[in-house]
């Protein structure tokens, strides 16, 4: 179908609205000038400067560590929760439990952060990288549970029964059949948690201690002193990372949809 002129205009407007700010940011990250609003030729000096800034590198390291560990914890916990919710449809309190697992998706970050902070104080846990990891795992686990349970719902249970029937133990049935089949959803969940952790500012601000500053926290505190081109460079790197994550996720889910189509036919 050919696009009409009206459709072309609306599509352009929509995408301009979404991506113009990001485009401007990316372009200005290669600006030679120190002034963010004046273009003075192409340069990568802000990237170079960024990689020599100890504080930024430290923050980037903390962020990556938090994102990797919390995403992994969230994936394991979220997959387990999804499994129980989908598989054991009749146990006391199931409705309550399934409602509760999804609640953090809609609870404001401020409240979640505050409640976690209070919990850590009450339990007398020193705030630092560990508390950020726990906090991030807590809220991203819900996203994993949502993604994985929506895949498990369409998973043909006969596959597991077939595995058992062919001599697999229940654990082998899960690890050799169920897990590989739902793997794209699990990986999507992991990538989602990773991205969520990467760009969380609010919750991390509540639960971090003096020694642990994540990148978003660093950027936010810098911004209060004025926008520096370094931040543009940093943002460009983050955008690139996130874009790779999103594209990988969508390729994975498209592929698994193909396999699923074959499975449904069979």
């Amino acid at each position: 179908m050919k696009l009409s002129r009206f459709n072309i205009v609306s599509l352009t407007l929509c995408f301009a609205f979404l991506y113009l700010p990001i485009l401007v940011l990316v372009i200005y990250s290669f600006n030679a000038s120190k002034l963010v609003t004046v273009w003075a030729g192409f340069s990568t000096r802000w990237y170079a400067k960024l990689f020599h800034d100890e504080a930024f590198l430290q923050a980037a390291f903390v962020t990556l560590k938090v994102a990797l560990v919390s995403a992994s914890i969230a994936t394991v916990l979220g997959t387990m929760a999804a499994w129980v919710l989908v598989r054991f449809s009749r146990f006391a309190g199931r409705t309550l439990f399934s409602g509760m697992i999804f609640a953090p998706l809609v609870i404001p970050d401020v409240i979640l952060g505050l409640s976690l902070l209070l919990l850590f104080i009450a339990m007398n846990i020193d705030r630092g990288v560990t508390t950020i990891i726990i906090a991030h795992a807590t809220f991203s686990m819900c996203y994993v549970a949502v993604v994985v349970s929506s895949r498990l719902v369409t998973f043909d249970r006969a596959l597991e029964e077939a595995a058992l029937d062919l001599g697999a133990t229940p654990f082998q049935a899960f690890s050799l059949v169920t897990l590989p089949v739902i793997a794209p959803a699990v990986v999507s969940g992991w990538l989602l948690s990773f991205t969520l952790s990467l760009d969380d500012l609010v919750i991390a601000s509540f639960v971090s201690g003096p020694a642990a500053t994540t990148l978003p926290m660093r950027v936010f505190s810098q911004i209060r002193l004025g926008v520096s081109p370094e931040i543009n460079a940093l943002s460009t790197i983050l955008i690139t990372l996130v874009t790779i994550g999103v594209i990988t996720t969508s390729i994975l889910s498209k592929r698994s949809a193909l396999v699923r189509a074959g499975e449904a036919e069979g």
Partner: protein
Amino acid sequence: MDTAKAPPPTSDASAALPPWQDPAAEPLIRLENVTKRFGDFTAIADLSLDIHEGEFFALLGPSGCGKTTLMRMIAGFEAPSAGRILLGGEDLVPVPPNRRPVNMMFQSYALFPHLTVADNIAFGLKRAGLPRGEIAERVAEMLRLVQLENFAHRRPHEISGGQRQRVALARALARRPRILLLDEPLAALDRKLRAATQFELVDIQERLGTTFIIVTHDQEEAMTMASRIAVMDHGRLVQVGTPEEIYEQPNSRYVADFIGEVNLVEGVVTAAENGRLVIDWAEDAAPIVTRSDVAAPVGTRVTFAIRPEKITVGAEAPEGAANAWQGRIEDIGYLGNLSTYHIVGPAGRRFKVQSPNRRRVARREFSWEDRVWFAFDETAGLVLTE
């Protein structure tokens, strides 16, 4: 449809008797007073059944009759609420499904989508801890058996439905189970392929000698393949017998009606002597005269069952027929090789009559609204008291 099937070969001298008639024969699998309840619902009610080595046994019934539940209990996916399941004399109930010498072919085939055809077949062999060389050998043998040698490295979504069905069969047979359970194995195939596959399954079963238990709602499928059929209804066995017995001597209206087409005529016995019954079924019409072993004294209400193909149609009253009436052709169903006539007989009672089309249609003898005679002899029908 009613292909006669030789009983499976047995080694001892009394081979003349099929194992289910031999009181000395040990059944391979024995269900003893098995009951299965799901909450308030009773899926299987106090069911007992023996199945012997080498049988091709069909569990036949409408959906919801409990046949699949019964199969899942043999596979180990459901535990009976009461009763015992014995395999070769040993209690099977406490054995988990992965330790039972029983394999199942699932209705959805349940092929592992992330594994190739060969790896699907090898799955069970790897779990059994067979050496690598033997696994490769066994997989090749299975691929040959189902004629899929060229598809070993395809994924399930890269092959056709018929091929998937064969992979599922090969995978279930690879572990050489003592019993193969088949849950509606042909339901997903089209009609032509289904007919071909039926004979292929029988062929494979006879070659391997494995005991097959098939669950189906398709009576034609059960008749074609099985050495014995168990007709089920509401969690109970209604009749167990060979296809011939089930078709020619149904023990109840339910079985007669479920297997093939049948005319059921209700009436009252007015005379009974020397194994011959006279049944009054309509005012102003000659009674039905039939031979029967059924003990039905005068005055008993009975149902007379007669298959459409056992009634003949003619322009004249046939000579010497024990039962003949005149009727009007209301409808003709042309099936190509056969025609089904709906004839309105005495008292407005409708009869279905089936006769082969020996001539081409243009030269057909009868047409709509023709008055014809329909008749059958003394031994054509069956008296049911249930």
